């Protein structure tokens, strides 16, 4: 082996990347060549010099990256699950759920629909899709995370929403599911009213009925609750609906909602109904509701108060 061959192989020797035979030849040469041994030491010093440039990411940088990744994965995960649901034509296989879990299940379903509607992928629906803008730029965005950096810059994670126009019939399941999602929009009561108004044309749908009942029980806006009551008009004899109406009658803080609840409940007169109205008379302060309740009791030939 010549000195040049040995010098060329010194870096690989120090990295331990020479084959057994190659290493043997270099070591043999080094054993008899002082000059190459000096070069080896020089190479060793050079490699130690490289070490001083090594960087280690700070925990802060690592933590920030982990947080950002978690947020991005949450968004990516929602997009995937929504895409899967769309691919399966919104077919949701419902197994019998224990009675106590039904409200939670219904809420979860609606929440999924709401979140899905927020993550609508391009051309994902089997309905006519018209882009609202020719360049497809995001029209709304939401800042999800801000973090000042020591460099003076600010790191911001922005969630962008693209606006598009969809059209289809209410009985199209895709459209219906979007309306169900819109009926739960936390920001826009007007949107919830309009959505429920459209959905009430499909009272035979179990999902629509659940959405109407959920809005009636939980929506903070009385206008939305009144629209939900209107949507339940055709189902007033359904035992589950009557149970919710009774609860609303006794607990809702809006007189208009209580009055409409009476109107729906007395469509099916019963002794139980008489008892409920009499109970209402004992606690009702609003004059108009009392009048409506009194009239209903008289129509059922019942006494207004219990003694």
């Amino acid at each position, binding site marked *: 082996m010549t000195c040049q061959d040995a010098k*060329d192989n010194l*870096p*690989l020797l120090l*990295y331990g*990347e020479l084959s057994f035979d190659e290493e043997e030849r270099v070591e043999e040469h080094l054993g008899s060549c002082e000059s190459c041994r000096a070069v080896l030491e*020089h*190479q060793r*010093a*050079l*490699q*130690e*010099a*490289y070490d*001083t*440039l*090594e*960087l*280690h*990411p*700070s*925990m*802060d*940088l*690592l933590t*920030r*990256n*982990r947080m*950002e*990744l*978690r947020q*991005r*994965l949450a968004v*990516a*995960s929602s997009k995937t699950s929504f895409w899967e649901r769309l691919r399966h034509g919104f077919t949701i296989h419902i197994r019998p759920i224990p009675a106590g879990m039904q409200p939670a299940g219904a809420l979860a379903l609606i929440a999924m629909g709401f979140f899905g509607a927020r993550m609508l992928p391009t051309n994902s629906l089997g309905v006519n899709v018209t882009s609202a803008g020719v360049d497809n730029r995001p029209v709304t965005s939401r800042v999800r995370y801000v973090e000042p*950096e*020591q*460099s003076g810059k600010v790191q911001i994670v922005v969630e962008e929403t693209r606006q598009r126009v969809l059209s289809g019939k209410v009985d199209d399941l895709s459209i219906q599911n979007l309306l169900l999602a819109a009926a739960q929009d936390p920001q826009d009561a007007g949107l919830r009213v309009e959505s429920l108004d459209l959905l009430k044309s499909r009272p035979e749908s179990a999902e629509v009925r659940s959405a109407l009942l959920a809005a009636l029980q939980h929506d903070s806006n009385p206008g939305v609750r009144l629209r939900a009551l209107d949507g339940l008009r055709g189902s007033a004899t359904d035992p589950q609906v009557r149970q919710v109406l009774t609860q609303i009658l006794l607990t809702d803080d809006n007189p208009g909602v209580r009055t409409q609840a009476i109107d729906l409940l007395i469509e099916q007169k019963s002794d139980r109904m008489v008892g409920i109205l009499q109970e209402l008379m004992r606690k009702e302060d609003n004059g108009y509701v009392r009048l409506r309740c009194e009239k209903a009791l008289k129509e059922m030939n019942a006494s207004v108060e219990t003694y």
Partner: protein
Amino acid sequence: MAAAAVRMDESALIRAAQGGDERAFEELVRLYDQSVLRLALNLLRSPEDASDIYQEAFLRVYKNLHSFRFDCSFHTWLYRIVTNLCLDALRRRKVRKEEGTVVETSEGVLDRMDTIEEERADGDPQRRLLSEQLQRRIKSVLADLTPRERMVFEMRHYQGMRLRAIGESLGTSEEAAKNCLFRATQKMRAALGDFV
């Protein structure tokens, strides 16, 4: 024995993550994310660019994990993604002729030249010999290497990976990786020979 246990845990994590278990995926990320960030930071020498690589790499892993068939180690599969992203970033930087200068270390954001001053002040006998000029020269030579040479050098010198593993990650042979490392070290010795 311990290594086998780790591999088994990793396989279980991968399978759970493939089945949609997000906690398993997060654990899988945490097994490797520090070394991924370190590789990207050393290659690109910019915390912003390194963070971009980190995010994009693990998003790709998340989106493509279902296609991982255990026909190579997860480490190799992950590093194929990471090295491809880093090579692309290095190539773009070559075109723009840019290089990150401000870096974030365990002490926060620092300029590397300041770090050298601090080390010199510590009185470390080995590092005392290194001049600021040498540090700049090393940085300059590293920047002049081709993206592939730079990648192989970083993976061997800073990450301590064997050439076989480097070759697998880069989708090439061990011999090709060895040639790459040989060229890189030759160039560096030629440029830095007078300084040490």
